[in-house]
């Protein structure tokens, strides 16, 4: 049914070039190490995380912290003590009481949405300098009471007499108080009732990705991250975090440089046992982390003598059926490529967020699939083969982790740094978004 509707309401094609406005620079950025959730709340709240990486980032800029026009922060699981985490972060970062700040939420795309919103403000001439980030403390995702339990509590509070109170008390059933883990709930699509892992199972089946291929991909992600850490390629991009208890976190701690396909093969399917193939080993890790990117107009670059690393050339958002949300990057990136008349390998580096190894491989496979490209993407033929050495060159969320509101920001940040390090020009960062959406950004190193 969804497909039919989609066909009927297909939107008119986008103009050839999206970007008709001012040039928008990506100046600098930094993130915290991504910290694996260990079954209890980690040492940092979402805003704590954004302060940990925001302070050193702002410190190394030539302009004062209150020079920004606004702060935009993506965050999915906002905790109740930090409503509008963007504003709380801005104030805690010493950006001044007069700093407008708002939080954006588009699930796994939140950290990229903040960049895109900032990009458009600057492109259209409304702002010159914006701090855009993403933050997520999945280990803090609260346990929530079921609606029935909340109603029962409300009834107690509203009891009009002792008799009424007793009556309310007696209406209690123990099942009501079984807490719901909001994280588990949040990772289940409310429309189609599938967990995110199940959507990956669907793609694996659709595009014929084997368990071995997914595990191999996962191992390579760990190896690439371990190498980047060892070579110091993440220095400055990842800044250490220190908890109030004095714990020092210097690196992404989910990386397993010694993992192997043999080791991963032993893991059981997590979402669809016993026959499924998506395991904790070939899925992104549940982690806490935050990331910021600074965006600036030409004027701001000149005013403060900034040294931008990249230009944000274009962005695109698409949506598709929630049960195959993992395929979103194919839609968004293809749209960007079409607009810029480029093929897959005309782009020097790709960041496709690794929600699941099978999901990334499915995207690659989809572009190789002539039928899919014709029917679903409206192309004349298959898009081609995206060369593996262009894709997630320093590992991805399988090794680094996927703090949902942060990842979109991280991949843009890393793409910018990786292009610069390798002396390459063009890059696309894209991610799938739970609920059936996707965002993509085309950037060019300066």
């Amino acid at each position, binding site marked *: 049914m969804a497909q039919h509707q989609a066909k009927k309401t297909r939107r008119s094609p986008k103009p050839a070039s999206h970007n008709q406005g001012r040039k928008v620079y990506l100046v600098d950025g930094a993130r915290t190490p991504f910290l694996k959730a260990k079954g209890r709340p980690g040492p940092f709240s979402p805003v704590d995380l954004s302060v940990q990486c925001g*302070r050193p980032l702002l*410190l190394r800029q030539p302009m004062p912290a209150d020079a920004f026009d606004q702060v935009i922060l993506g965050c999915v699981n906002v905790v109740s003590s930090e409503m509008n985490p963007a504003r709380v972060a801005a104030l*805690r970062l010493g950006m001044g*009481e007069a700093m407008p700040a708002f939080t954006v939420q588009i699930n796994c795309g939140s950290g990229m949405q903040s960049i895109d919103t900032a990009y458009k403000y600057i492109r259209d001439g409304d702002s010159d300098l914006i701090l855009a980030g993403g933050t997520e403390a999945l280990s803090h995702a609260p346990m929530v009471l079921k609606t029935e339990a909340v109603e029962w509590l409300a009834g107690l509070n509203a009891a009009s007499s002792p008799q009424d109170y007793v009556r309310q008390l007696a209406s209690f059933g123990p099942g009501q108080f079984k807490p719901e883990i909001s994280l588990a709930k949040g990772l289940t699509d409310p429309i189609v009732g599938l967990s995110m892992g199940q959507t990956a199972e669907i793609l694996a089946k659709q595009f014929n990705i084997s368990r071995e291929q997914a595990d191999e991909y996962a191992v390579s992600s760990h190896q690439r991250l371990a190498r980047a850490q060892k070579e110091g390629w993440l220095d400055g991009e990842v800044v*250490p975090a220190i*908890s*109030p*208890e*004095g714990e020092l976190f210097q690196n992404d701690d989910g990386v397993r440089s010694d993992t192997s396909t043999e080791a991963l093969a032993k893991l059981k399917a997590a979402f669809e046992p016993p026959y499924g193939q998506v395991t904790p080993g070939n899925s992104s890790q549940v982690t806490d982390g935050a990331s910021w990117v600074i965006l600036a107009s030409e004027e701001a670059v000149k005013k403060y003598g900034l040294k931008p690393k990249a230009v944000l050339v274009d962005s695109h958002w698409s949506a598709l059926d929630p049960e195959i949300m993992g395929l979103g990057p194919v839609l968004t990136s293809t749209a960007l490529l079409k607009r810029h008349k480029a093929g897959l390998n005309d782009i020097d580096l790709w960041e496709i967020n690794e929600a699941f190894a099978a999901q990334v491989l499915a995207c690659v496979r989809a572009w190789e699939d002539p039928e899919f490209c014709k029917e679903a993407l409206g192309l004349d033929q298959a898009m081609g083969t995206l060369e593996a050495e262009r894709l997630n060159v320093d590992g991805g969320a399988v090794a680094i982790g996927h703090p949902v509101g942060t990842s979109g920001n991280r991949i843009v940040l890393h793409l910018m740094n990786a292009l610069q390090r390798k002396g390459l020009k063009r890059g696309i960062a894209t991610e799938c978004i739970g609920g059936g959406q996707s965002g993509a950004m085309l950037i060019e190193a300066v």
Partner: protein
Amino acid sequence: MMGHILETLSSRDMARGPFEGKQTSTADSHWAHWWFERDSDDVAWLILDKKDASANVLSEAVLKELGEIVTELENKTPKGVVVRSVKASGFCMGADISEFSELSSETEVVDKLTDAHRVVDRFEALSCPTVAVIHGSCLGGGLELALACHYRLAVPGAKLGFPEIQLGLHPGLGGTERLTRLVDPIEAMTVMLTGKTAGHGKAKKLGMVDQIVEERHVAAAVKAAISGDIEPGDNGMRGRVLSTRPARQLEARQMGSQSAKKAPSQHYPAPEALIELWEQFGGESDEAMRRAEITSFAKLMMTETSRNLVRVFHLRETMKGLTRTKADPVRHVHVVGAGEMGADIAGWCAVRGLDVTLFDMEADKLAQAVKKLSDLCEKKHRTAAERRDILDRLTPDFANQGVGRADLVIEAVPEKVELKQKVYEEVEPRLKEGAILATNTSSIPLETLREKVSDPSRLIGLHFFNPVALMPLVEVVSHDKASDKVLDRGRGFVGQIDRLPAPVATAPGFLVNRALTPYLVEAMIMLDEGIPAESIDAVAEDFGMPMGPIELADQVGLDICLSVADMLRDRLDTAMPPAPDWLRQKVEDGKLGKKTGEGLYQWKKGKADKKDPSGGAPDDALDRLILPMLNACMACLREQVIEDEATVDGAMIFGTGFAPFRGGPMNYACKRGFENIRESLDKLAKAHGDRFQPDDGWH
């Protein structure tokens, strides 16, 4: 943080009854220090606004005018009376301490106090409801005035207390009686015996105030109080139980032994006098207690201890005065080196509201610094939100990026010339215009350090003491190329972080370490002679030192003591004996004192494990310890390392805890007489060697 919009509004909001919207009383007012008028409901507003002063004190003139106002109120009783202050600093800081020094006999004190009591007693006896509205500081005499009201309303942020004990006194304007009557007498005595101020919350809990009221609701709360809609506090069960003398005796004994532990009564007579006062009269006879309070207060005021403690108070004020400069305040401090001192300096600056970056090559040290600051917040009972803000202000800087942002860079790396000079070479070119470069060196002359600084006028010493959060002193070290502007700003910074500056010239060990070292070295020699550590410490503690020299050496760290002693021996031509070999051995073995768990003592849970002093110390032990310290102080004065005797006393009291009731080393020397000091030193020199050779300055 306050933005300009909030700042614009914030001056608008103090309730002032019939004076609403006015900044001063009417020009033709009869009174210089009070605003006095009745509002349309016939409620009289008494607003204390001491003329030409930034803070209110209860001077004789203020009380005299109050007496006249009370007469008017007696003649035509209003519906109610409100007392409050319009000073930003608070309600009232207490009595005018400078007036104290003018009194030279107990009778004079008794006369003055009796007059003051009469005014307050008459004020209390007014037949209409009286309400004190308290914001900010409400201390000593100010609190006593508030206690004479029927109701006390505290605006959040109010601080109430009786600091008299720190001046060797107890409350003297009826406070001993009124507070023990108003609240649980044991709590009341604790407040007076410790001299600690209670914040608005604690004061409410204790019953010192009846209600906590936001400033915007003060007018409404005053109305409620005057209409009798506020329930006044009650001193509870314990007050009734302790209304007989035998019941009080037991409590008094306990209080006595507790306070003697902190402040032995032979040195500090006030706690004992206060306890006696309460034991004799508490809760039984109000008037008799107030009369006895006057006599007891007058007696205490004439003691040497009180005179000296008042002197210390003035020393503190004088040193605070040195921080009031026209220089731009420091907003961002960058500290290089996260060792013990660097970490503590950075943490303390963050506590005091400055933006701080702390750089160290070792990330672990930065992590430790954050933990230490977190622990300090805990110790100081900061709320979770306050702790968060304090920790947010301390940015661990992994790449020395804070340099360019800082108004002040403090170098606190290990005491090695090359290391420090390397830091300056890296930092100086990146300094903001007008930024200060400071060193926390304790022993290296600034002439040496500045060799690698291209603009030495911006280099000064800011020498902190360990632990920074507890030691109020900072030596502000100058040298002949330092600019006055930089020194001014340096002292201003010391004031910003609520420390006290002692201006000193660069010289080996500056003042404090130079004076302290011979004292510590002599203690080592005594150890060498077989005198037990505990006995040596006991001699110093009996003199009034906060801790003995052996314990102090362990606390400071034997490595640091040794390096300072070696440095002083090299650079000064005094006959300081070499450090004993066993001390060097201990340092080599890593037995450095408190920080390693073992030094001259074993340390357990942060405390030295001391045995009862077994053998006694020789008769000349005290002079052997103290006189070398005085001798060094005199040398510093003679060599103009430090300007005057008062600054020496302030520095030694606030930097080392030198027995405050003795008024400082130079004050002590004056009391003994320079002649006596010289002769005693001569005698010691004959008996023990040249190290006791009296300084030329004693002549």
